[in-house]
């Protein structure tokens, strides 16, 4: 802009020469404008090229762990997914993500997707297929893959229990607790725990909760055979996502280690609910259940 304002000198008197001069200046100004606007917009490619735009995305995002190109290009940046999410997990990226501006992402530690909408509302809301309709159930999504990043922070590995509010009284995140309200998520800060051994990551895992519900329904011996068949299929997650494994124990303390299994979809609830700071368990966005073998 400063370069352009220098050309702002009074024009010459002679009419034809003045016109020529005016045209010349307009041409220079226009060239500067073209270069400036194109330059600024191309800077938007940098965060993508550098891989800084990678993030935890909503379920069904059209991406592989390390390649978000299709997702970024197909997203129309309207935020309809943001509007339908019952726990407000989805946010829109800022200008610092360059061409990823306005694209939805999830900060799991702040508010993870707990699938409390059941029907993948964000996927249904997406007008462009950036969140692909190819998946029908939470268990089909591949957002990332949990990993125990800070084993020494893990209360279960230390053999410790947990009593109180998982994330303290000021935490604003929401989760659905079926026994309290089947339809509406409530603040995590309103739900105190008292656990002999901390198992929050396993206990709150949406996939594990669903599997338990399916098992309970089956145990009750549901009358409707079709319904049972349906639950046995995709609606009931086919694989476990996380489990506890006992280990050590020479000191007589009961210790458990969280182990991430093939059914993990990377929703981030474990990262959200993990009490220590930083959390012992986090979502690795560079991996997912389908890409585990190749990556590890």
């Amino acid at each position: 802009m400063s370069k352009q304002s220098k050309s702002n000198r009074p024009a010459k008197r002679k009419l034809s020469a003045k016109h020529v001069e005016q045209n010349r200046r307009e041409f220079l100004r226009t060239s500067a404008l073209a270069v400036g606007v194109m330059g600024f917009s191309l800077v938007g490619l940098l965060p993508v090229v550098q891989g800084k735009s990678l993030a935890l995305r909503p379920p069904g995002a059209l991406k592989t762990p390390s390649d978000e190109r299709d997702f970024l290009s197909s997203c129309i940046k309207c935020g309809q997914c943001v509007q339908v999410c019952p726990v407000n997990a989805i946010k829109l990226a800022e200008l610092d993500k360059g061409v990823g501006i306005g694209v939805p992402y999830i900060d799991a530690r702040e508010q993870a997707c707990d699938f409390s909408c059941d029907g993948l509302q964000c996927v249904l809301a997406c007008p462009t297929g950036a969140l692909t309709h190819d998946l029908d159930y939470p268990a089909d999504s591949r957002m990332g893959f949990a990993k125990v990043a800070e084993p020494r922070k893990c209360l279960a590995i230390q053999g410790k229990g947990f009593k109180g509010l998982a994330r303290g009284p000021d935490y604003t995140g929401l989760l659905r607790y079926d026994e309290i309200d089947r339809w509406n998520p409530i603040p995590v800060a309103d739900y105190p725990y008292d656990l002999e051994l901390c198992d929050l990551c396993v206990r709150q895992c949406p996939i594990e909760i669903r599997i338990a519900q399916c098992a309970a329904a089956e145990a009750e011996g549901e009358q409707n055979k079709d319904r049972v068949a349906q639950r046995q299929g995709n609606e009931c997650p086919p694989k476990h996502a996380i489990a506890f494994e006992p280990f050590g124990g020479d000191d007589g303390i009961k210790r458990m280690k969280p182990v991430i299994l093939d059914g993990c979809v990377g929703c981030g609830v474990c990262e959200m609910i993990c009490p220590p700071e930083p959390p012992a368990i986090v979502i690795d966005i560079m991996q997912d259940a389908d890409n585990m073998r190749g990556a590890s």
Partner: protein
Amino acid sequence: MSYIIESFRQLFGSEPRRPEKSEISPEALAVHVYKKQNPFDKEAFDVARQAHARDAKKWRNRRWATLLVINLLFVVSYYFDVQLLEGALTASRFMGFHMADLNSALQVTLAFKHMVLNLVIGTATIFVLWVLLGGRTFCSWVCPYHLLSEWAESVHLYLADKGWVKDHSFNRKVRSLFYLIFALLALITGYTIFETISVTGIVSRALIYGPGVALIWVGLVLLFEVFYSRRAWCRYVCPIGITYGVVGALSPLRVKFVLKDCHHEGECRKVCLVPHVLDMTVKGKAVHTEVDVSADCTRCGMCVDVCPTNSLRFEIKGLGKHL
């Protein structure tokens, strides 16, 4: 057909075509000659002008009200979760019906090279809507940046009046260049490059989802318009204007120039965002007694508001009825 061709020429940055003397219809010529022989009574004109001044914000008020209502509908819909108009201007759902901004849909399609059914439905809906309503009508009646830019423009005009700033023009063809480059970039890189800097998208999302750092860019563009070049974004950069302009070339809703009572004093061209479309209001240039304003016109109605003799009017082609 000539209307569409002339609309495209002006949309893509050419100056209005200078009509040959022979093209001027006998009726129009008679009016031109009559005006030459009978100069207007200046005092009578001033009286008419003052009488008109009371009425001079009619279309502006309607337009601002429409623009605010549409944008607030997005905000209210999300804030109170009433699901009336979900999404943002780039794509939305009105009571469940898909709608997609034509330029955003085009960028996404070029980048992604695939269109899901919902996007086809949304794009088609909006296409039909703006064919009926005038194409670039989107710019002045819906785009939230347009309103900010209008306010920046009044600051610019105030400062220019004081002699503190000067309007620097650019070659209007550069907007077509931007259009082409952004389309090619989307196609080649596979990313919607324009969306990064689209002030329309940024302002719309900021209104609905809360402000962010992207508003600094919007602020810079506004400052550029205030201090350096009047309405620069809409006039010289924004590809959305071209997309809707092309749609508008098919639209029956236009502004019409009626030669008979025009005093050719040029107030309309002074207020206009795209003054080249009003070239026929220059003395002796109108080829017919009634001429339609080309599709680069945003149908904002400022010329209709400012014209003291009602020589510029909204019309719906084919209905033959003035609004």
